[in-house]
């Protein structure tokens, strides 16, 4: 496989324009770029921040593994993912996925597939900090996220 995923786990925010440019600059074989950005929601101002914990090493490896599957399955020309950790406030970015390919459905599917798997397979955990100073506890895994995987089973 000559297409290599670009996967980063970092505390810093990302620049979506620069990340798209990294994948597309100087190329004329790309017809479709799909990006997904996941943002922290304020839940009606009840949330002051999310705190994201991850398993260093395994997080990169696991997302890379899933991204390689996406490249193969959808014939992507490139894919990148950046997942942040640490404290993230409402309105801020949590995760970015970019998929590029010649045609639109492959790029949509590649980004969607990686996000669905990342949600349930990448070793990240979210803790809520409430606006009233309370510890909101660890976010529970959602059945809906497991269900979302079903659409990718053949």
């Amino acid at each position: 496989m000559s297409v290599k995923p670009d996967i980063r786990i970092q505390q810093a925010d990302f620049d979506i324009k620069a990340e798209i440019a990294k994948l597309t600059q100087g190329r004329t074989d790309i017809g479709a770029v799909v990006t997904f950005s996941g943002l922290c929601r304020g839940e009606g101002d009840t949330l002051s921040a999310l705190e994201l914990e991850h398993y260093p090493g395994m997080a990169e490896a696991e997302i890379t593994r899933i991204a390689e599957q996406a490249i193969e399955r959808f014939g992507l020309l490139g894919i990148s993912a950046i997942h942040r950790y640490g404290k993230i406030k409402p309105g801020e970015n949590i995760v970015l996925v970019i998929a590029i390919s010649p045609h639109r459905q492959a790029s949509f599917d590649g980004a969607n597939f990686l996000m669905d798997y990342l949600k349930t397979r990448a070793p990240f955990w979210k803790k809520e900090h409430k606006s009233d100073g309370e510890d909101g506890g660890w976010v529970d895994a959602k059945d809906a996220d497991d269900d979302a995987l079903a659409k990718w089973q053949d």
Partner: protein
Amino acid sequence: MTVKLVYFAWLRERFGMAEEQVELPESVKSVSDLFDWFETRGEEFANVMEHRDILQVAIDQSHVQDRDALLEGVSEIAIFPPMTGG
């Protein structure tokens, strides 16, 4: 056998540590055996093991679903709640 045990999220908080180096008893051959042994390690460990059915395990940084998976020769075992990334 000596292994590094790694904990995340509320397991880390409840155990009061992110990781520990332990000498596993001879009897601990599988993930299932490991969980049984945890139940004997004191109240907080036993309490966490009430959730053993939903706990996730990674052996040397690879997910392991099978509770009969063998631990021989591994160096790092991570235990954590279901993941909530993205």
